[in-house]
């Protein structure tokens, strides 16, 4: 068994707003081994991005309360000062941001944006940083890196920009890469390219990856384990096969059914999840998914289910009325 790179225990991130406190992440525990890819899946507003930023210690400090524990390669992130985090960012953990249109500085040449990490964090001199930046640009598949080095972000396409963001994140060889919906802002054809690139870089650089997405299809072949989040909590987690073929939580099924399949006949109506994600600022005693769940009973509305173990090792779910293990029409 390889060592644990990341251990998250009962992590809670609460935003204090004028209308009350919002528990964006409400008690999340999981761990991640070295060289593992973990998928985190959920709808918009399920707390995926907040969770990612909390793990990285990137959350703004004002009006946010973080409790619990995040052990990253033995270092505690929760409560660490910005100064401490600065020594971990880029070298221990780095992030690929969601939208490459906004995550690169529009008035800085892309080469400089990669350079400065190398110079500030690794103490490289101008020449060495320049050469390394060119290597990184080539590594992420940017053609004629030499001339692109001097380009401004607006001169590149979205896919190229996301490659630059990836190159920047990988500059100091982080042990953990968090990719927060890295393909949401991109064309479908580019999406696969970027995901395959992340995959091959992960092998090449032997790092761990947390891949955050709302699309189960994205993580299907890439993650070894998947966490399904809803309303800031983990509702099901397990090996990728178990999540796809033996899921127990109705929400996981709803997510699976709402993504189109190649085998569908034309004009098949896509299943949608009725209702909308809950408003987290008004506390709800029961299961947060209950109002939208076809299987909900009286109990679901008054008592919140906790994660319990399923038959497969590491497979856990939070549901009072779980689907039976055989009740999986789409199991192939």
């Amino acid at each position, binding site marked *: 068994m390889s060592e644990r790179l990341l251990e998250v225990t009962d992590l809670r991130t609460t935003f204090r707003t004028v209308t009350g406190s919002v528990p964006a992440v409400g008690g999340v525990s999981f761990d991640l081994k070295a060289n593992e890819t973990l998928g985190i899946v959920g709808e918009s507003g399920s707390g995926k991005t907040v969770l990612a930023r909390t793990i990285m210690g990137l959350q703004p400090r004002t009006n946010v309360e973080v409790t619990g524990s995040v052990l990253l390669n033995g270092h505690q992130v929760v409560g660490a000062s910005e100064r401490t985090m600065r020594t971990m960012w*880029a*070298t221990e953990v*780095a*992030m690929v941001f969601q939208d490459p249109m906004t995550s690169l500085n529009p*008035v*800085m040449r892309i080469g400089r944006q990669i350079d400065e990490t190398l110079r500030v964090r690794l103490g490289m001199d101008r020449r060495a940083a320049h050469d390394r930046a060119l290597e990184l640009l080539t590594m992420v598949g940017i053609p004629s890196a030499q001339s692109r080095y001097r380009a*401004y972000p607006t001169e590149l396409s979205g896919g190229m920009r996301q490659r630059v963001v990836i190159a920047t994140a990988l500059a100091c060889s982080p042990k953990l890469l968090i990719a927060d919906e890295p393909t949401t802002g991109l064309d479908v054809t580019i999406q696969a390219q970027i995901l395959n690139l992340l995959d091959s870089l992960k092998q090449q650089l032997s790092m761990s990856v947390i891949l955050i997405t709302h699309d189960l299809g994205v993580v299907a072949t890439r993650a070894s384990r998947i966490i399904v989040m809803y309303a800031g909590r983990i509702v099901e987690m397990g090996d990728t096969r178990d999540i796809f073929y033996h899921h127990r939580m109705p929400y996981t099924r709803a997510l699976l059914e709402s993504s189109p399949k190649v085998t569908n006949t034309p004009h098949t109506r896509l299943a949608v999840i009725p209702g909308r994600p809950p408003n987290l600022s008004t506390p709800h005693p029961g299961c947060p998914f209950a109002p939208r769940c076809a299987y909900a009973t009286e109990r679901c509305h008054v008592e919140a289910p906790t994660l319990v173990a399923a038959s497969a090792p590491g497979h856990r779910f939070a549901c009072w009325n779980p689907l039976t293990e055989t009740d999986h029409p789409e199991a192939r």
Partner: protein
Amino acid sequence: MLKYVLRRLIMLVGIVFIISVGSFYLIHLLPGDPATVILGTGASPANRAILYKQLGLNKPIIEQYFVWIGNVLHGNLGTSFISQTSVASTIRAAYPIDLELIFLSQVLAFAAAIPLAMRSARKPNGLLDRLLSAGSFTLLSIPPFIIIVLLVLIVSIKLGVANTGPSSFVSFTSNWRVNLTSLALPSITLATASFVLYFRVLRSDMIATLQEEFITMARSKGLSQRRIMWRHAFRPSSVALLGTAGVNIGGLLAGGFVVQYLLGIPGLGYTLISAIASSDYLLVQGIVLVVSVGVVLINFFFDFLTSLVDPRISRE
């Protein structure tokens, strides 16, 4: 980039042409015969004849314009009939004072506004930010002619610092120390209004920029706060600042008159007011032309700076 500058240059030529037509027509806009306007009602027929010949007043107006613009392009703005001196030489003597005043006041304004705005923006609504916002509002509400009077009263009269009062002006080249001390108070006065403007513009843009995703990304690279503020946030936040500065400096060139007049500093503003008072219309015309072209040039220069700071502007 080159194309952008060329296009702006063509526009510049067009605007300068319109300005020249406007200043030329100024004399003809005034009621009565242009010769009477320029010479005054008591002019002798001989003088009127000379003027008619000099300006070609009996020719059609379009031809008059070309005679006039031809002279202007050769640096000849005519000779004032009031002071019997060439308008061009009067302007040449006055404009360096305006440039010096503007330069000094802007250096002061930027030197104070930039670091304070950066600090303020780091903690919006923090103690420093609230103090500075309140302070800048107070400064904004005091007009420059009050500030200058207060400054003269306190610094020159109460504290007795020499050479800061009215009418003590000497040029920079003849005695730079006296020159700087005599320009200190008007520079500070002009700087206060500019400071408030720049501080507020940069502060709000900095606050907006610091919310941007690329700032979070810069943080996630482990860069220091200082580096993020200056290397990542300042440049994209300074576009509006430069635009404001262009308009503001143009305004100072055209509107720094009050302070000059109150302190007897013989810049273009002072000269213009005296020229109006003595009905020296050729001099008025010359100053209006020079100041307008100056304003346009300053704005062109700042547009150019803006396109250097933000490469997206020249690309469109």
